[in-house]
């Protein structure tokens, strides 16, 4: 058995279980913790794919920053257990799950069958990619690209973050109470 496959199965299984846990727990704290599990196992998959930089960022940004934010808000609002009754009544819930399954089937179908017919999935593309594998995609290369070809998007990203920063301040700012 291929060791890579074993690792993949472990991480894959954990991330799927984590994901299911996210949508199953009633208490948002549990959901958030499950999500962290999923994120970590995804980071593992990234490592498996040789994307070390992304894996590191995944851990730092997602599992670190974003999830802390989630937990922080949940604590702040002091959200207790919520009633399991969803917005959609039981029947619609069934509909939603059936839909989800259909969507999954379609997604899998694309991944397994449809892709091969396209240019990306063709054997030639794979061969061409194999030739490129001599120069592995490491952090150095990503940095090089980021600061040359993708400099503008990179800077725009910083603007988005700035906008988000300002937006958050405006949103949560306490309205001035009229002085009596």
């Amino acid at each position, binding site marked *: 058995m291929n060791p*890579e496959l074993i690792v*993949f199965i472990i991480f*894959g299984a954990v*991330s*799927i279980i984590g*994901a299911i846990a*996210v*949508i199953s727990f009633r208490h*948002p704290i549990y*959901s958030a913790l499950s*999500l962290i599990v*999923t994120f970590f196992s*995804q980071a593992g*998959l*990234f490592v498996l*794919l040789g*994307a070390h930089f*992304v894996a590191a*960022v*995944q851990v730092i940004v*997602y599992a670190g*920053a*974003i999830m802390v934010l*989630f937990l922080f*808000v949940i604590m*702040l*609002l002091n*959200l207790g257990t*919520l009633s399991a*009754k*969803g*917005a959609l009544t039981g029947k619609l*819930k069934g509909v*939603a799950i059936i*839909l*989800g399954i259909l*969507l*999954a089937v379609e*997604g*899998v179908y*694309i*991944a*397994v069958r449809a*892709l091969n017919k396209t240019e*990306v*999935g063709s054997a030639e593309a794979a061969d061409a990619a194999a*030739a*490129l*594998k001599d120069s592995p*995609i490491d952090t150095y*290369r*990503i940095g090089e690209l980021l600061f040359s070809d993708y400099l503008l998007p990179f800077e725009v*990203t910083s603007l*988005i*973050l700035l906008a*988000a920063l300002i*937006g*958050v301040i405006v*949103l*949560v700012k306490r309205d001035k109470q009229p002085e009596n």
Partner: protein
Amino acid sequence: MSLPLEYYLVLSALLFTIGVIGVLIRRNAIIIFMCIELMLNAANLAFVAFSRHLGQAEGQLFVFFVMAVAAAEVAIGLAIIVSVFKHRETINVDEVNSLKG
């Protein structure tokens, strides 16, 4: 011998679908939000898998951008949730229905 692309894509599809189902069946805005993150991650996974498959660094770059945007989005989204909660004392999406025609 690395694993075929299809493995990762199937996993990505499954994760994505779970996210969709979560968005559909949960009424807590925060959990819906988490499910959205889940879907974004599923997409990221596909990106990276393709990146390796094609030997191109761009896939990973986009993941980087997605993460940046996701961070911004989470910040804004959570701020909205906080202020909605301040006004309505609830974050159940079916109770926040002022879009009703």
